[in-house]
């Protein structure tokens, strides 16, 4: 168990590799109750979100969610989040646990007009079910048909008297969902899904495999690929930055200026070794051109993989070296993701 922003959470249950492979082959269950939730309500909720987010929440239908970074004026990143349209004038933001207080303060200080922001994190538990067997398991456990939802859509669903919010999305690239529940129901829900899923090979998954799974599908993690020092333009999230939406938003000017010195690249290590955060990235001449932000052993590939920032003018090479304990090990740049889940 480790302390994770005040939450005592398991790095692993049976082992990172076993949990990772079980999720890819069958299904994994993740207790992600540590995630923060901020509720925005009021007549001006949407216009506030439009100003706070570079994505375009006006495109959301009821029951639809979208991903967005949350930016400072200089286009560095406060956090990355999912925004759910619960009702007209009612939106839920799901944010990173370690950033929750900072996010809440940032949102509140930027609110205008008729809009109330509430930190409702304590009211929600959250469980993610991911993997090819997720659909069958959810059917067995809750009698809910996940395929009735499109990707990044959600619905409310009553289970044993409790109102759940089931969203078809996840952090592994696999088929699956994230389920918000009243916090008092979390344990019962966890046990019900686990019991229903065990015959299908469902296993509980800790923070360790959560990280290796997200890295294989090249999703960014706040504190590594995204932070309050680096410009968001280099973070490979430009499809979530809607510069052409009519409303002005925080960070827009800095995005338009566009002077970003570095960008993310994705590397597979061709020699034996495991890249880790902060290891130096070198060009083939041995000059330092960047830094690893996330690195691990990929259980699916059986190789070391890395996400790294490279200086813009050095970011298009085919091969690099990653310096591991003084030695430059050869790495090949790939187009993300590292692993394509079977859909």
């Amino acid at each position, binding site marked *: 168990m480790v302390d994770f922003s005040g939450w005592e959470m398991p790095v*692993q249950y049976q*082992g*990172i*590799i*076993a949990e990772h492979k079980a999720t890819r082959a069958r299904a994994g269950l993740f207790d992600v109750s540590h995630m923060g939730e901020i509720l925005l309500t009021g007549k001006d909720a949407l216009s506030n979100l439009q100003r706070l987010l570079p994505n375009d929440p006006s495109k959301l239908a009821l029951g639809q969610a979208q991903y967005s970074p949350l930016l400072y004026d200089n286009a560095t990143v406060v956090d990355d989040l999912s925004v759910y349209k619960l009702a007209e004038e009612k939106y839920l933001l799901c944010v990173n646990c370690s950033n929750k207080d900072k996010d809440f303060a940032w949102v509140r200080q930027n609110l205008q007009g008729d809009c109330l922001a509430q930190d409702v994190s304590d009211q929600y538990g959250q469980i993610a079910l991911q993997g090819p067997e997720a659909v069958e398991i959810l059917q067995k456990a809750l009698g809910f048909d996940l395929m009735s939802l499109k990707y990044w859509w959600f619905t409310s669903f009553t289970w044993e008297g409790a109102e759940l919010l089931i969203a078809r999305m996840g952090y592994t690239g696999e088929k699956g969902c994230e389920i918000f529940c009243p916090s008092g129901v979390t344990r019962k829900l966890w046990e019900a899904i686990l019991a229903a899923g065990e015959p299908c090979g469902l296993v509980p998954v800790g923070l*360790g495999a959560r990280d290796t799974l997200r890295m294989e599908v090249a999703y960014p993690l706040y504190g590594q690929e995204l932070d309050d020092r680096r410009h968001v333009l280099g973070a490979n999230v430009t499809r979530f930055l809607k510069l052409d939406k009519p409303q002005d938003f925080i960070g827009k000017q800095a995005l338009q200026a566009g002077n970003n010195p570095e960008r993310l690249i994705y590397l597979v290590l061709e020699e034996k*070794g*495991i890249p880790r955060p902060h290891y130096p990235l070198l060009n083939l001449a041995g000059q330092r051109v960047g830094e690893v932000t996330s690195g*691990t*052993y990929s259980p699916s590939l059986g190789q070391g993989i890395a996400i790294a920032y490279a200086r813009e003018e050095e970011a298009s090479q085919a091969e690099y070296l990653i310096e591991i304990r003084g030695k430059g090990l050869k790495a090949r740049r790939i187009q993300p993701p590292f692993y394509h889940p079977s859909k």
Partner: protein
Amino acid sequence: METRHELKYTKEHEWVLIEGNQLTLGITDFAQSQLGDIVFVELPEVGTLVDAHEAVGNIESVKAVSEVFCPLAGEILAINKELEDAPERVNTACYDEGWIIRFKAEESDITEADLMDEEEYLAYAKAQE
């Protein structure tokens, strides 16, 4: 946590089996369970001369990297080459097929070395749990 009576232990959670002036070294059950899934073991060359407490290799798990220290000055006599293809043996059999290096040391150094017996090590490791 498994320990073995016939072994001596270091503060770095390694074990040594002493046979005359030759020693076999590996990591303890406590160490392998802390590291989790081991996917890569970097070993020294046979014949390398090492100083006491010098790092002679690295163990990479999915979670972390950990150095292997040689507790005594000596010469590397053998390395467990099997670990190149089967590093998980350090997890599954840390006191047997998961041994890491064999080295030779001066008998006087061995007698004076700061090593723990099984009982001392158990108390030491439990305090870190």
